[in-house]
């Protein structure tokens, strides 16, 4: 009997567990999933609940109920992985041996890493929307908001779902307009990047969406501290941005046990081969989902596509064959733009998000353009997530990105 231990029962861990259970013989392979609690949240809803687009009760379900019966699920904190001894040390003092290990413990907002962020105004006038509690607190503050300076701020990249802060300001514009306080509100988007987004075409298209909504961008802002008394955020180069309501994306970091195990980089992400998700240090360890250092978006779509490639590779590896499948960095993200419309981004390691159409069996969706079809697609995805994606059922989306329908712009000519 061989043992596969999966640390983390989120999107990547659950999908990998279910898909592998279907492929690995029960009399030869034991699969164990470890997580600290039984709460599986549909995380895109963290952004929607504060605006009333999703209901609170639509967010959370039982983790166990999405994991196949042939998989053992244990609730425990993870202390440390001893990769040489192939052992996981758990918080209850027990240890667990493995033949193969999947680290899928994601990324977590760390407001403690920025001086002043966790002051007395945390979850009152200073918020984040990447946790269940943060979502609830922000919902209340937005309901009570009567105008002033609303500042959306990003601490540092990489962050989970890098388009979410853009969605937040566009949804806030829509929400505050309907609430009748938009005219009394200044919305400011503060980013460490030099524009609205990282990649040129998307930055231009999304930047246009912000300017038409009268949302000001404050670029190249590296935060040093939050001053909750003066209600300003300060940068290392001594700029100040004043706020009445601050919504920040705190520094994102991988789990602390990753650092304690000596398996992480400076942000506790596990260095992996970007085409196979295999640890660069130990061939029997893989990192899936947001907790790896893959140079692409930390997003559910990346977890989904890379897990599909991983499962095929893993089945080859355990039979002693070379891994022949390669993940191309494929990500696609819906970007809610308010007024019942959304944009769609589709890209990989080599190709930046472009304009054009996204080929789908159910009909084309527009890329980088706000349409109702994209919005309907995004809302429908919650059902797809619970009922198709997590159980590991096939979806008509290819792991490998397609250039079909994409508009390739001429490259700038150098002088």
């Amino acid at each position, binding site marked *: 009997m061989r043992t596969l231990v999966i640390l983390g029962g989120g999107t990547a861990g659950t999908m990998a567990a279910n898909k592998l259970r279907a492929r690995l013989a029960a009399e030869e392979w034991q699969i164990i999933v470890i997580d600290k609690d039984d709460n599986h949240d549909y995380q895109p809803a963290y952004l929607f609940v504060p605006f009333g687009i999703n209901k609170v009760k639509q967010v959370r379900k039982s983790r166990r109920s999405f994991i196949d019966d042939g998989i053992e699920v244990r609730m425990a904190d993870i202390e440390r992985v001893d990769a040489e001894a192939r052992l996981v040390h758990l918080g209850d003092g027990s240890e667990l041996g493995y033949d193969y290990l999947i680290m899928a413990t994601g990324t977590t907002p760390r407001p403690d890493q920025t001086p002043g962020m966790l002051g007395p105004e945390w979850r009152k006038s200073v918020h984040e929307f990447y946790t269940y509690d943060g979502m609830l607190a922000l919902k209340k503050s937005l309901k009570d908001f009567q105008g002033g300076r609303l500042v959306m701020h990003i601490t*540092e*990249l*990489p962050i989970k779902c*890098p388009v979410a802060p853009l969605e937040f300001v566009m949804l806030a514009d829509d929400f505050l307009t309907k609430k009748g306080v938009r005219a009394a509100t200044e919305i400011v988007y503060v980013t460490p*990047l*030099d524009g609205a987004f*990282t*990649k040129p075409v998307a930055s231009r298209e999304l930047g246009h969406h912000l300017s038409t909504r009268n949302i000001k961008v404050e670029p*190249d802002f*590296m935060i*040093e501290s939050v001053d909750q008394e003066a209600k300003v955020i300060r940068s*290392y*180069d001594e700029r100040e941005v004043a706020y009445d309501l601050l919504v920040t994306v705190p520094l994102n970091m991988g789990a602390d046990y990753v650092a304690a195990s000596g398996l992480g*980089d*400076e*942000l506790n992400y596990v260095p992996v081969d970007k085409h196979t998700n295999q640890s660069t240090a130990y061939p029997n360890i893989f990192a899936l989902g947001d907790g790896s250092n893959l*140079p*692409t*978006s930390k997003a559910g779509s990346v977890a989904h596509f890379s897990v599909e490639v991983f499962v095929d590779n893993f089945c080859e590896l355990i039979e002693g064959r070379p891994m022949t499948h390669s993940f191309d960095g494929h*990500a696609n993200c819906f970007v809610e733009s308010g007024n019942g419309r959304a944009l769609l981004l589709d*890209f990989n390691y080599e190709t930046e998000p472009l304009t054009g159409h996204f080929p789908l069996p159910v009909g084309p969706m527009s890329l980088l353009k706000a349409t109702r079809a994209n919005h309907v697609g995004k809302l429908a995805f919650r059902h797809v997530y619970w009922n198709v994606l997590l159980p590991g059922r096939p979806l008509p989306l290819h792991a490998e990105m397609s250039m079909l329908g994409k508009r390739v712009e001429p490259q*700038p000519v*150098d002088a």
Partner: protein
Amino acid sequence: MPTTTIAGRQIDVDAEGFLTQPDQWDEDLALTLAANIGITLTDAHWVPIHFLRKDFETQKETATLRRVSTVGGIPVKELFVLFPGKPAKKMSYIAGLQKPKGCV
């Protein structure tokens, strides 16, 4: 890839002027690159530049500002003083490396 002449040498650069061949770099070239963006290199400047070069040898990619600070031990505040405005971009430009990946 375009080629340009810097300090009398043929150098391969990208559209923004960052070197694409790190092995074409040496300390003499760094002086010229720094001067191009209005920086006169002092001993304090050389510390992060040498860190970036050394780190690149093992990591095969340019260290982020956080990595220079946490692994290289140079406070971010100091990097902003040495390379005003955009330290990550300016340091990597002078060190003859690609700018750190703007994470997607």
